[in-house]
Each structure stands twice: as structure tokens, then as C-alpha cells.
């Protein structure tokens, strides 16, 4: 039942930068729309869930705005030069307007009937931008040209925060460097103001953002020195005036007026949301500890909510009374992922640096942060230029019972290091600090690993750290003799090894844990993990060793190393000889824990390529050149919950685990075989929309009634169960709930529809097994068992289902087979309906 083998596609699955533009609340404040990389994401305000991801732009989305004339529609602009109009409730693109040049910001105003404003680069000049109004033609058709541009302001800043439109679109204010420009549309008058240039004693006077009062002629500007200026009377060139509000100690990142205009919200690097009342310096309220610097502030149109976008991709939703309401956080962005991508064996979550000093556990399935573990346990001060302790290394033991972390504070002379060992407490379901070792090494720790032995006893667990102080250390558990200690074990150093006074750079245990490989600059040394004898050394000059790893399963006799000079080497541990080597500038070397495959990502001439190989043969199994634009920083294999069926032998390596990459821009990507259409079918998301109905007394009453009904239904038997299943099918649901005028063509919907009629146990029918040669026999048995169960249930289903007509009517197994055969061959006949 595998569709004709599609090429592997690189799919973004989270983490991409949320700060393309200010977020937008839907008119009813139920949904929050955010630009996220090339996509527009829709979140539910009530449940924090991602309801919809709208893709279609070919580059970063730079601006989103509700259509002022139809609040169910959304305009989005992108660097790819197009403006798209979406029906965001259904996630359907309605129109695409091609503008032609890069769009850097988008503004839509109610007072301008059929045009929107965008910021585009000025033709021929670098780093100069202009604000233009684009006339959106009303012509029919999906893809339209919008070439009717008229320049409103010249010399504007590229940032969308540097332009704001005044009350009822009377004027537009733009700031750049130390200049403020105000253009009045009716009077066609342009006023320019400037603040004193140059660095004053209080700091940099530069403008950073601008906001306009919704009902009065008042412009608020934020400055790099933390001041907020409120400009009034700016219709006069001379008699303008401003007052100053000052609380922020660093750059004001964004400003927003409340809907009534009585309050002003400001945010900056301090991660405190400040509410200024009545434009007074003395009446202000704060919402502190928002976690990281505030990048954008946006208000809901009814004023009940406000949301802040943070530099680490967190979205915070705040009540109108300045109370923290919700936080939407996917992959937290950090300045530098020093820990690498680690998979928590217990939760299968990706683990990496989160908030400063924290470890984030990121759930790949739900694109949500599971939790954040405070490792450093020190107050983080939001100020630029401070050296603060940060997490640099993390390692899990095989079952996730132990967690080792290394934190350090960058000092030029001597770094402050701490090695911490955490024990997973089953009771509290969290990690508890077991041992803290100050200065485990004299210098930076370069690598760390646990001996990965699933079946071995707990006391055989050892940890190896390598340091720039030219030694590697082995840490082992010892019984705690201190009677006052609450724990029975603690960690201490067991062995210190070194090799020719070289810096130790990497370490790795073989699969069975008997051998430890430690790389010392240009040399790889292999040690016996019981006696700590040096077994052998490998060297492939020139170039220092960048990465090493052991092969697994059938290839466990191989040791792979990547060097600085662009060589990938494979040594045979039995013969102690170089098996093969390849010229490849490998930046990431990642073995799959569940198979023999090893993924290597190379960076050559500004493109990242992926190579997957088995150590026993020098020829790669799979090569994908230029998998993404950015440089890939890290990669990790995440084991799948259940192995996927893979049609092509080429992609067999993806069967048991999935490969994830983290790029420079901290976008998390993965390789997927599913077609675009399948991925974009919003599974279960539509449901979420419906379930998010507000809790009104009526809905409560209705809910009670419904519950009673369902109670009865359960009593009645299993009939309903199956019925429900069909209704629950997302495709059908979508088909039934999408307004007819936005439905795609019937031929497009047909396969989905038919799919939904089939009980969604794809790939498990008998023919399937026959088709697929590689299918393991064990699994087929399982499948057929399940199949039996399903058919049983099917037969009990007697209630006719509306709309589905006779097609659902008791599908016998033979009928089903027939249907599938038809579907595989030709289904264009349905389009005739």
C-alpha cells in the first residue's frame, strides 16, 4: 500500500524562527497567527496547540495581517516576493499576488480599500528600502500579478517594527537611525524630526521601534538607550514636542498601545513587559521573568489579550490585567547549542540547551516542550556582555536513568567548570541531583559519554570525560559511606588516562562496552574498559580527529573517524588496519543506535550534503546533495515508536529511526517519505478546533446531555464505536466541514475520501505482504491478527451512515480488495460525479 516511491523530502518540523513579524490575533481572540520560517502557524489560544501550518511561501514570511475587510482572511508577505491571501480557518490559500521584489514587511489598513503597504528594497541600491502601497487587483483566479506600486516613503528601515500607521490611517510614521518621518496622507505632507545624533552620555539615541496611538495623534518611539519618547503635535514642523519615559536599561525592542490607547506596552532584553499608564513615568506595571528577550508585542483587537514573541521562539500570551496567561513554546532557540542533539531514552524527546542554564526536553511529535530542567540553578541576568554559566555537555545513560551535565563559565584565564550527575527519580518523575563535581578537569571538557550497556548491572555504569587538560577521566559510582547522605551512591573519579600529552577531544564506547575509543588530537586510542590498558592506536594524518564512533550490530568491528582535513576513515578493530577512507569534509557524524547505519553530513562549498553508509562497505547507501540552505550544525537519530514500512531499499535506513537535523538558523528538519499532500492533511487538528468551543452555561448543559447520550450508546453496544470511527476520520470531517466554495476539485479529494472508507490499517493487508518482499514474517502475523479484529468489528456495523451512502455499507474483505485494486489502477471516474 505504499504509494509509488517518492523522493525523500526535507521537512521542517519545528524550531524555525518565529520572529519574522508580529503575531496576529484572530478577531475573536481564539487563534493566534504567527509567521514561522516559510510558514504561517495558527495556534489555539485556549489550548496552546498548533492547529494549522499554512505553507506555500518559498521563503521567509515577513509579515502577516488580517484582511481588514474580512476578518476570516489573512494576508501574508514573504521574501519570495508574493503576498498571499489565506482563509486561515480552513488553511486554504485564496489568492497569490506576485509583487516581484523582496517584501520585508506588510501592513494592511481598513481605510485603504484595495491596497496594502509593503516595504521593498529600493531598485539598484543596497540597504535602502522604501514603503510602497500595492494595489491588489480584484481579478478572478488564484495567481495574480500586483505590479501597481506607488512609493509612499523613501529611506525606511527594513525592520517591520520601524513603521507604524496612525489612527484611521491618517498618517504613517517611520523611524530610521536618529530620524523620524511622518507622512500625512490627506495633506500630502511629510515632516521629519530627529533626535540628537551620536552617542550621548546616556547611550545610543537611535530609534528602534515605533507605535502609533489608536485614537490620538501620538507616536511612541523606542530607542536603543532604553528610552521611550512620546511625540505629539508632530503636524507642526517646529512646535512638535515629546516626553520621555525611561525604565529599560537596554534597547526597547517593541512597543504596542492598548486598544483604547490608555496604556502602552514595551519590552526589551530585560524580558520584562512594562505597562505604562496614562503616559506617565510614575504609573507603570511590570510582568517580569518572561524567560528571554521580548522581540515583538501584539495586541488582540478586543484588547483582552496581548502576546509577546521572544527571541528564543517562545510565545507568551498575557491577559489585559498583565497576568501571565499562556505560553506556547516549541523548540526554544538558544544562542549556541553547545550540548548537541541528545535523545532522552525514556521519553524519546530531543534534549538540548533551552533557556540559559536549562536543558529543554522537546517532544518531536507534538512540537512542544515537555519540560525544562534547570541545570545551572543560578539567577540569569538579562544583560549583554555578561559571562554567565551555561550548559555545555549532556549525556544520558542507556535507559535514561542517569543524566550527566557539564556547565562552564567562560573566563579567559581559568574556566569555572562543574560536572553534575542526576538520577531519575521515579516518584517525582524528574531528575534529581546526585553528585556535583567542581572542576572535574583543569580545562574545558570536550566530550563525555556513558558506557552504553543495556543489560549490565547498575554498578558497571561508568562515565568518561575528556578534557583539554590532556587527560580523560573515568567516573564510577561508589557506595556512599556518609550516613547522613540521603542517597546510597555517589560518583567519583576512577581512572585518569592520557596519551603523549595531547589534548583529548572525543570519546566513544563500543556497543558492548568493552572498548573505549578516545581521540587525542591526531590519534585515536582504543582502551580496554575493564583494565584500562591501551589496546591500540590509529592515526590518519594530517588533521585532528573531529568525530569518532563505533559501528554497531554487524559492523561493530569498525571504528569510524572524521578528521579536520576532510577525511572519513574506517578502521578495522580486528586487523587494526585502515579499512577504507574517503575524502569528505564531515561536520556531523551520527550513528543510528538501532541499525548499522551511520549518517555523515558534509559541508562543502556552501552546501550541506547527507551521506548514509554502513561501515562495512565504503560505498554510501544514500546520498542527498544540498539538503538545505543553511549549514547543518547537529543531527540525531530518533528511534521510531514502531518501525515504518519502507518500500525502497534505498530508504531502508530510515525504518527504525528518524534522522533530525538542526541548522544554523536553529530550524529542526527531518527527512520524510510522505508526500506533501499527506503531510499537510491536518490530522486531528480540525477536531481540536471544534473542541475548543468556549465554556458557556449552554455548552455545559449540552455537554451533560451529550454525555448521557453517549452513556446510553455505550450500553447499546459497540455499534456506535465503529460509526464514530468513520466520522472521526479527519479527511471525511474536513470534507464535510469545509465550505463548498473553497473545496478543492473532486479528483483531488477522492483518494483521501476512499482512503477514509477503508479502515485505516494501511500496509497490513495480505496482498501488501505479498507485494513487499522485505516484510518480516513476524510482523505479518501480528498484522493479520489485528486485521481479523477489525473485520469483526466491521461486520457489527449495521447503522447506515449518512452521506457515505452505500459505499460504506458492509465492506467485505473481498469487496475491499476489489476497491483497492480499482483505486490503484484508475479512479478518474469519480471525478465525473
Amino acid at each position, binding site marked *: 500500500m505504499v504509494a509509488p516511491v517518492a523522493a525523500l523530502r526535507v521537512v521542517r518540523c519545528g524550531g524555525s524562527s518565529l520572529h519574522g513579524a508580529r503575531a496576529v490575533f484572530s478577531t475573536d481572540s481564539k487563534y493566534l497567527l504567527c509567521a514561522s520560517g516559510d510558514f504561517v502557524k495558527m495556534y489555539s489560544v485556549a489550548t496552546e496547540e498548533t492547529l494549522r501550518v499554512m505553507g506555500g511561501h518559498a521563503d521567509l514570511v515577513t509579515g502577516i495581517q488580517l484582511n481588514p475587510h474580512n476578518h476570516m482572511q489573512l494576508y501574508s508577505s514573504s521574501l519570495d516576493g508574493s503576498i498571499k491571501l489565506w482563509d486561515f480557518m480552513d488553511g486554504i490559500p485564496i489568492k497569490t499576488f506576485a509583487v516581484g521584489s523582496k517584501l520585508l514587511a506588510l501592513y494592511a489598513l481598513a481605510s485603504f480599500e484595495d491596497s496594502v503597504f509593503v516595504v521593498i528594497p529600493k531598485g539598484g541600491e543596497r540597504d535602502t528600502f522604501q514603503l510602497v502601497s500595492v494595489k491588489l487587483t480584484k481579478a478572478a483566479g488564484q495567481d495574480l500579478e500586483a505590479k501597481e506600486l506607488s512609493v509612499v516613503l523613501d529611506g525606511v528601515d527594513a525592520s517591520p517594527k520601524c513603521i507604524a500607521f496612525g*489612527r484611521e490611517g*491618517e498618517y504613517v510614521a517611520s523611524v530610521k537611525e536618529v530620524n523620524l518621518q511622518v507622512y500625512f496622507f490627506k495633506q500630502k505632507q511629510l515632516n521629519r524630526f530627529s533626535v540628537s545624533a551620536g552617542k550621548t552620555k546616556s547611550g545610543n539615541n537611535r530609534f528602534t521601534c515605533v507605535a502609533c496611538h489608536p485614537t490620538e*495623534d501620538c507616536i511612541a518611539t523606542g530607542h536603543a538607550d532604553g528610552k521611550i519618547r512620546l511625540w505629539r*503635535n508632530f503636524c507642526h514642523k517646529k512646535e512638535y*514636542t*515629546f*516626553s520621555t519615559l525611561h525604565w529599560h536599561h537596554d534597547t526597547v525592542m517593541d512597543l504596542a498601545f492598548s486598544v483604547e490607547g490608555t496604556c502602552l506596552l514595551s519590552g526589551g532584553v530585560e524580558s520584562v513587559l512594562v505597562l505604562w499608564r496614562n*503616559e506617565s*513615568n510614575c*504609573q507603570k506595571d511590570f510582568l517580569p521573568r518572561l524567560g528571554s528577550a521580548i522581540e515583538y508585542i501584539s495586541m488582540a483587537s478586543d484588547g483582552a489579550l496581548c502576546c509577546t514573541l521572544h527571541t528564543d521562539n517562545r510565545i507568551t500570551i498575557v491577559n489585559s490585567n498583565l497576568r501571565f496567561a499562556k505560553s506556547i513554546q516549541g523548540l526554544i532557540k538558544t544562542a549556541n547549542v553547545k550540548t548537541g542533539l541528545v535523545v532522552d531514552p525514556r521519553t524519546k524527546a530531543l534534549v538540548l540547551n533551552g533557556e540559559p542554564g536549562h536543558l529543554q526536553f522537546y517532544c518531536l511529535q507534538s512540537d512542544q516542550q515537555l519540560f525544562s530542567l534547570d541545570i545551572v540553578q543560578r539567577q540569569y541576568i538579562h544583560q549583554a556582555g555578561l559571562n554567565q554559566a551555561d550548559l555545555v555537555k549532556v549525556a544520558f545513560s542507556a535507559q535514561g536513568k542517569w543524566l550527566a551535565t557539564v556547565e562552564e563559565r567562560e573566563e579567559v584565564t581559568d574556566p569555572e567548570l562543574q560536572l553534575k550527575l542526576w538520577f531519575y527519580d521515579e516518584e517525582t518523575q524528574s531528575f534529581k541531583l546526585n553528585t556535583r563535581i567542581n572542576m572535574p578537569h583543569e580545562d574545558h571538557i570536550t566530550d563525555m559519554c556513558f558506557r552504553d550497556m543495556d543489560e549490565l548491572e547498575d554498578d558497571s555504569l561508568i562515565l568518561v570525560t575528556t578534557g583539554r587538560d590532556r587527560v580523560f577521566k573515568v567516573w564510577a559510582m561508589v557506595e556512599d559511606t556518609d550516613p547522613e547522605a540521603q542517597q546510597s551512591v555517589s560518583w567519583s573519579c576512577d581512572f585518569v588516562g592520557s596519551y603523549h600529552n595531547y589534548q583529548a577531544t572525543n570519546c566513544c564506547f563500543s556497543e558492548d562496552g568493552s572498548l573505549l575509543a578516545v581521540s587525542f588530537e591526531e590519534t585515536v586510542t582504543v582502551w580496554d574498559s575493564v583494565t584500562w590498558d591501551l589496546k591500540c592506536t590509529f592515526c590518519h594524518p594530517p588533521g585532528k580527529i573531529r568525530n569518532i564512533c563505533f559501528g554497531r550490530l554487524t559492523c561493530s568491528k569498525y571504528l569510524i573517524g572524521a578528521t579536520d582535513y576532510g577525511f572519513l576513515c574506517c578502521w578495522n578493530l580486528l586487523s587494526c588496519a585502515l579499512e577504507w577512507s574517503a575524502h569528505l569534509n564531515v561536520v556531523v557524524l551520527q550513528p543510528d543506535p538501532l541499525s548499522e547505519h551511520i549518517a555523515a553530513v558534509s559541508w562543502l562549498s556552501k552546501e550541506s550534503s547527507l551521506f548514509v553508509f554502513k561501515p562495512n562497505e565504503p560505498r554510501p547507501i544514500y546520498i542527498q546533495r544540498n539538503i538545505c540552505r543553511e549549514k547543518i550544525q547537529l543531527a540525531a537519530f530518533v528511534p521510531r515508536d514502531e518501525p515504518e514500512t519502507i518500500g525502497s531499499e534505498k530508504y531502508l535506513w530510515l525504518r527504525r529511526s528518524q534522522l533530525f537535523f538542526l541548522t544554523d538558523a536553529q530550524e529542526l528538519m527531518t527527512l520524510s517519505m510522505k508526500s506533501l499532500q499527506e503531510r499537510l492533511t491536518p490530522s486531528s487538528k480540525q477536531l481540536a478546533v471544534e473542541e475548543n468551543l468556549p465554556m458557556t452555561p449552554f455548552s455545559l448543559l449540552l455537554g451533560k446531555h451529550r454525555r448521557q447520550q453517549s452513556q446510553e450508546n455505550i450500553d447499546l453496544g459497540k455499534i456506535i464505536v465503529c460509526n464514530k470511527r468513520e466520522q472521526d476520520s479527519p479527511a471525511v470531517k474536513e470534507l464535510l466541514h469545509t465550505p463548498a466554495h473553497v473545496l478543492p476539485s473532486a479528483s483531488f479529494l477522492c483518494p483521501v475520501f476512499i482512503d477514509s472508507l477503508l479502515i485505516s490499517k494501511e500496509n497490513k493487508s495480505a496482498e501488501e505482504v505479498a507485494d513487499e518482499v522485505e516484510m518480516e514474517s513476524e510482523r505479518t502475523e501480528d498484522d493479520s491478527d489485528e486485521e481479523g479484529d477489525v473485520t469483526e468489528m466491521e461486520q457489527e456495523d449495521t447503522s447506515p451512515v449518512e452521506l457515505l451512502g452505500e459505499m460504506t455499507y458492509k465492506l467485505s474483505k473481498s469487496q475491499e480488495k476489489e476497491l483497492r485494486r480499482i483505486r490503484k489502477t484508475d479512479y478518474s471516474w469519480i471525478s465525473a460525479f
Partner: protein
Amino acid sequence: MGEFEVHRVRFFGLVPAGPRGGRLALARTDGAVEIYNFAANYFQEKVIPGNEARSVEALCWAAGDRLFGAGLGGEITEYDLSRLCVARSVDGGGGPIWSMAANSSGTQLAIGCEDGSVKLFQIVPGGIQFERNLDRRKGRILCLSWHPLDTHIAAGSIDILRVFHVSSGQTVQRIMVNYHVHKVKRECIVWSIAFLSSGTVVTSDSFGRVQFWDWERGTLLESHTVSTSAVLSLSVSEKEDSIVVGTSTGATYQFQLLPVKIGSLEKRWVRTKPFQHHTHDVRAVAHSSTALISGGLDAQLVIRPLMEKMQKKGYEAALRKFTFPHRRLVSCARKARLLLFQFSQHLELWRLGSTNETGKDGEVLPLCRMPEHLVQLKSKGPEHIYCSCVSPCGSWVAYSTASRFHLYQVQYEGDSVSVKKVPKVPKLLLPAYQLQFSADSDSLFIASARGSVHVLQLLEPGGCKHLHTLQPPSGCPEAVYLLAVSADGHWLAAVSGDWAIHIYNLKCFKHHCTVPTYNCAVTALAIHPITNNLVIAYSDQQLFEFSIPEKQYTAWSRTVQNHGLHKLWLERDSPITHITFNPKNPSHILLHDIYMFCVLDKSLPLPDNSALLMNQSTLKQLPETARQRQLHAFKICKKFQPLLFADLLDENCLVMVERPIMDFKTQLPLPIQQKKFGT
């Protein structure tokens, strides 16, 4: 070169003032009243020295140019601005007076007293007359304001403000000011009040609020909290579209009445510009049509121009700060090398130190004899000293207060100094405004009221004789405030308050001539010892040279006028306070103001606007030939700041009197403690 410090101690807190007709009157906490003339580059035109017994809490202009003051002594005082003394004072009859306001037509004065009464006085020619009391309640009246139509008076007290109907004298509104603050135990003091023609009453109070009230309904219209400490002073512009307030943290804020939207009639008061020019309480603010004026306990008067009212950038558009008086308070006995310092109530005579060493330019030489404090003369009574002088030979010291004139003979016998008061000083019309000894120390010139100058002959041992009184031929109502005598004792120049310079011949005690009038105040003048040219510095920074024998401006003076002075020179802040000459080089004129000392070399060309005015440091780096080309007439030295006095002792010895601003600040009370971020 001797360098010295004046230990002049004065607490200058400034007290209410108000501009009237281009003149600003301000009172200091020591009772002194100063008049600044806006037209003459904010020159401190007149000073009425203070009096210990007379504090001034309120000042107001009324009935034309009559200036009234009232204070905690309970008296209303009228000042005689031509004679620079108190004209008359009337007891208010209600205990200490906290506030005073004149109505818009200038016919009535209202005072607010300690006992809670508001009293009205009629201003009549030659004095004031008690008219009646308004409704009296308990609680001192701290501030008063008339409605522009003179129908109502608003009065601020502790916790409340009241509005009186003038003709009936009844309280028509009483508003609790602290009603809107929750759980406040402290009392709320209404420090300042203003009644706008729209019927809005503006108050500033000790909670740091500026509030706008509708007096008829007694409701709060707007409240702006500008500071965590008290807002002490408030002033409204004439158009009633701008308000300036001063707080006890030294900050001043401007409020502006701005339209909410373009073209809409709805207007709102918006706090706009904050200024922090003071370190201490801003006790007084005034709003002129083009500038905000504030005076504080740190003894500074700050004039901050409103840029939007300025037509062009220039002298008017610069921020001015006045810390030091525009008067000479130091006199120097050149031959005896003595300095006399004038304090508000005493004089100090110091002998300069000396050194035997020589050194390079810029080097500090070790002293072989320390400066010596010879005599301190204390004036009796509460009155402050008007003027003082020491004779060039150092044996005579004279000073004058409002009611007395004293002449002392100082005798030096080795290290001991004896001071002998000269008996039987002729009874003259007092006070004396300026004293000047002749170069040979045998006569004393006393500047007096009505443009007259008395000449006293000094007799050995310890006597004096009134020789003559010089008077301008046409008469003059104003007092003489500056004198200059020629080195040969032949000529005397006198400047009176109407800025006319009269020159007298001392040989025959006759009026010689009058310098053509120039429409600006004279700040300093001196007669050249060799050429007998009179050099005059005006408050608009112009310089003139007038040949006394020829009764006309000299050729150089005409060149200066034709060529014009350098722009930077004209835009300087402070007036020239003293002029002296270098006898070795007759073409040199030595001038100084508070921030610079200048040697003006008449033989060199005048600088163009394009040339660098302060070019001394660049000249030093140039080679000799290039230096010659770059030279111009103004040689300015800014090393000594703030410079109170500079004089040439002999050919190569200069005395400079500095008063470091820090010394001065340490004498002030502690400012309000404020938490500053990052400290």
C-alpha cells in the same frame, strides 16, 4: 602669578520671581532681590542687597513697574528700583506672609498669611492700603492665584484648596486635595497654584502631582504624577498653553496643552519635556514667552529657551545658567598686593603669597610665603554690604551698607595689622553703589543715587573731607553703578542705571562729556593709563573704545564696529566683569568673564567668523611662520574657571581669583537622595 581662592559663602536659594516687561525679578533666600534684563542678554542689571531680618517669600510686579515683596517677617515691601533700596514697607497684619499675588490690572494685591487669612490691599500711588479680609479659615495659605478676570482667587493650603469670590469675600469652593490618595497619613501640601481663564485650577503638591481641577464642580480633571517628591513651583505661560513646574529633585517639567487630534478642538495637557538643570529644590519657576526660567536652592538661575519659539539659532536659543553675580566682589590693592573680598556681611583682607622661583609655562611654583589673612571686618546689623573697595596703597578700606558708610585706615607694622575707623565721615546720601579709590590713593569716589558721584579727599592721618559732588548736567533718576578713574587722576567715568556714561574732569570737577548712548547695559569699563581711552564692555558683548580727550570713538573702535566681532565671542554666556591694561604693552587690553580670560591685542587683525577664536592651543603646535599668519587679536585663556576676578599687579604678575564650583556645592544642604540605576 598669584593664584587665590575667595571664600565667599552664600546660600543663594532662589525664591519666586516673575518676568515683567522683559525684566525678571528674583529674590534670594538671604533677602537680596535681583533684576535681570532680558533685552540686555539677561544681564543682572540691578541688585538690591539683602537683609538678615527680611526674608522674601513672594515677589510680584504690580501697577506698571512697581515691585513688591513679602516675607515671613509679615511685611509687604515695595522696592525702589532706581535707588536700589526698600522704598517702604507695610505690616500685613496676619503673621508671616507665605504668598502674594497681584491681580491682572495691577490694582490689588492679595496676600496669604500664616493665620489662614487672605487679605486684599489696594495699590495706590506712593504705597499700598489695606482693603479687606476674605473669608478666614484655619491653615496657612501657601499659594495664591487670581483668576485672569479678577473675580476669583484660588488659594492653596495644607490638604485643601479654596476658591474665594473677590467681591463678596466668601469661600465658594473648597476641594480636598488628598482625597484621591488611598491610605495616606501624610498631609498634602499644595505648594503652588494657578487659576486659568477657562476656570481650571492647577495645583502642584507635595505628593509630586500636578492636578487640574474644575473649580465650579470641585472635580479633578486630570492628575499627572511627575515625581516621587514634592512639586514646589508652577508657572503658566501668558497664552495659557504651557505650564512649567519645578520639583524638589531639581527637575523641571513642561506641560503643554495640545490638541488630541489634528484640527480637533479637544485639547489635553500633556507632560512633555523634562529638564534636569538643578541639583536641589527648584524653588522658583517662571514662564516667559520664549523661555522657561528656573531657580533653585543650588543658587543657579537657569534660562532654558523653547526651541520651537525661536526663529533662528543664535544667542537667544542657547541654554543659560547663572551661578555667579555679574558684579565685581573682589578689589585689589596693586601696590600693596592685597585683595579685599566682599561677603554678604563681612569683608576679608588677604595678602598674596609670593615666590622666588621661576618656572616654565604652566608650571606650579612653590610658595615661599603663604597667603595671609590679615583682617576680617564684620558689618554690624542685619543689612548686607552693597559695595567695598581697598585703596591701591592698601591703607584704606571702605564699604557701604544700605544705611551706613564706613571708611577704615589699615596700618601695617611688621606682621601686625591694625584697623582704625575713620571718624566723622561726612553724611552723604546713602547707600553708596560703588566705591573707587584714585590711583594715588588720596581720594575716594562714591557712586550715589540720582547719577551723582561724591568725591572724598583722604587725609593723613585718618581723616577725610567731602570735596565735591559730580552730577550729570541733565540730571538722572537712576543710581550710578560703575566707576572708572584714570591713572593720572584726571578723568572719572560713571555709569548710571539708564546706561549713560558720563565723563568728568577731576581737575576742575566739571562734566566733560557723555559717551554716545548705546542701547545696552554696560558691564565693565576702564580708562587706559597712557592714552586715556575709555574701554567699555556691553552686555551684548560689544567692545568700544572712546577717546576722552577727543570726545569720540577711536579709530580702532570704529574698525571693530565695521568688521564685527567673532560669532563665538558674541554668543558667550557671561558678561565681561573687569577690564584692565598692561602698562608695558599699551596695545593690550585684559578682559575677563567667569569662564575665560582674554588679552586683546589691538595691534593684531581681528578674527573672521571662519577663523578659530580659541586658537591658543593650536598656535602652540604650529611652526613660527605659520603661527604669525594665524595670530589674531583675541588671545583667550580658559584655564581658570570659574573666574571671579583677574587683575594685573605689575608688569608680569597677574592675580586670578577662582571659586571652584565644588567648594561651593559642598556648602549646600544635601540634595534629595535618589536611587540611580546601575549604582
